[in-house]
């Protein structure tokens, strides 16, 4: 089962390697990982999407907590949260498909951020499932390049 884990860590050199090394060293899987400083610049937040059964997830959470640089670990699975990911998609846009691409952009409230005579670069934001849907629709037109940020999450409410 897929889990989204948010990890607050000391914003120090080598912390990313410690976390990544923990996953690779113990055979845990990282599906995506995003890192950036929080409001407090001495703290970074990592959002990790991983998968595994309950036993594996319990070990992942415990092992993350065991790292000296880890301040807090939250598994959002089963909680109410907002999840967003961004994708940049460079899609072929020849004469016969340019209009269709723009329709898809419109429907999914995406944005065109770069235009050439033969392609559009689109910015799409939303839940990973929405991104998958857009990418599936664009695929027949010819996706030249795809960059996804990996999701970030935040609990709902106060």
């Amino acid at each position, binding site marked *: 089962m897929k889990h989204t884990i948010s990890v607050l860590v*000391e914003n120090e*050199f080598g912390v990313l*390697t410690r976390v990544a*090394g923990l996953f690779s060293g113990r055979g845990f899987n990282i599906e995506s990982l995003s890192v950036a400083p929080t409001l407090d610049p001495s703290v970074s937040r990592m959002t990790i999407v991983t998968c595994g059964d309950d*036993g594996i997830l319990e*070990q992942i959470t415990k092992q993350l*907590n*065991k790292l*000296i640089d880890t*301040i807090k670990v939250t598994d959002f699975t089963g909680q109410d949260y907002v999840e967003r990911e961004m994708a940049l998609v460079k899609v072929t846009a020849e004469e016969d498909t340019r209009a269709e691409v723009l329709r898809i952009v419109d429907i999914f409230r995406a944005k065109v951020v770069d235009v050439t005579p033969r392609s559009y670069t689109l910015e799409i934001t939303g839940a990973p499932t929405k991104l998958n849907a857009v990418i599936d629709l664009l695929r027949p037109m010819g996706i030249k390049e795809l960059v996804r940020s990996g999701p970030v999450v935040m609990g709902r409410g106060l």
Partner: protein
Amino acid sequence: MKKTGSQILLECLLREGVDTVFGYPGGTVINIYHDLADYPIRHILTRHEQAAVHAADGYARTTGRVGVAIATSGPGATNTVTGIATAYMDSIPLVVITGQVPTPLIGNDAFQEVDIVGITRSITKHNYLVQDIKDLARIIKQAFYIARTGRPGPVLIDFPKDIQIQSTWFEYPDKVEMRGYKPTYSGNLRQVEKAANLIMAARKPVIYVGGGASGADASEELLAFAEMTRIPVTTTLLGMAVFPQRHTQSLGMLGMHGTYYANMAVTHSDLLIAVGARFDDRVTGKIASFAPHAKIIHIDIDPTSIKKNVRVDLPIVGDLKDVLKKLADALDRRSDELPALIHAMGPWREEIAAWKRGYPMVYQSSDSVIKPQYVIEQLSELCSEDAIITTEVGQHQMWTAQFFAFSRPRTFLTSGGLGTMGYGLPAALGAQVAFPERQVIDISGDGSFQMNSQELATLVQYGLPVKIVILNNQYLGMVRQWQELFFDRRYSQTPLELPIDFVKLAEAYGATGFSVSRPDQVREVICKAFETPGPVIMEFKVDREENVMPMVPAGAAINEMVLAS
């Protein structure tokens, strides 16, 4: 007052109460060594950096204090890796300081540069690269704190040469503040109550003790808890000295080369109380058949140890001293019911006694050839009660676990988790430095001994009277045993065919050597060695193809023991 980086390091060591360090100089630690002479810190110069770390480990295991080792950058640092991994696997508190090339050269593949922080990341509890002299005192304070608190472990500080030379105002922080590191010491009382209830309901309980009980110095609390309930106690290799092996409740070691009765007791138990143990594969054998009928209570300081390998019915995270004390208190509150409980466990005690009578730890004795087990028995009998025993890794290590009657905590030093050959001699060195007046004995095989035999020089130089027992079978015996039992007796690369004259080797270093090959000489030579001042090698030419028995074949359940070959 302003101090240089290397002076700050030494000041900090003093404030941490360090009086002894083990190490080996080199280009990037030359400043530290230059300043060392100004400080009341004893430095033991080993002949290899790996040995310096093992010696610091031996010092830590016997004293309970943090062991300190120093090595230079590059090869000096990589030589510490095996020592650090050994300490990490057995949860031993160490601070290892490595020199590093000057900061502007880091990443340039400079002479004697390695990324030792990267290399040791997965074998240290934590590690540091000092990047700013202003952080130095805080880093050292944190390193010692991390090493000795919670589940102990090694911490490495990589210290670039240019920062050793820079100066700053020195101020040692009073306390450590780390928002990400707060070990749980106090066991949850509600969990303890539940544990007490499980114990009161049990009819076939077993206490299973690991090295954590040694690290926590919890042997008194363990003994009290065990005696008030009369529950039998089995220990892992690292837990052996925590519980007196001659105690009537002792089942000896469990697992691959454990006693038949310990393994049977665990397999038939209805409640397994794990105390500072981590359900290693050498203990559990086939996981699916391990303690199949038992509820499991797991008491440990490290939450990651719990439910890592086996299902656990009742976890208690905390310091073992604290939890065992609370558990005894909880049982004390049920003291009216305790006699009934002890009575109800009568048939269980009898069942265990029958296994003990039926399948005791025995070996085939001989008048013509020295049996290795006999040597261990005689050592156990002849050495003083507070003697410190170290071992290397292999058959001799298992025979020591099986036939030496350990009775005091922190007297048995062996590489359990990593299984490091070459550990025993330098560990004995460290133990003898810590306790110059006590008997320190390294029990070794001819294979393992040659992995760090250069430390004879260190022993002689510092007048450390370690007694070294070599059970010489001219084989890498444990691997040979596996080849005999599971690989059609094809002894591929396990005979050590070149006969070594260990007596001459001892003499070459200025030590004393004895060599015997007849059983009737064993006691005599042990006594002679104990009376001889300084380091002594006792070589026993033993039965070459003796096997360690009983044995659980790899992957089998622990009740499926092979009793004799």
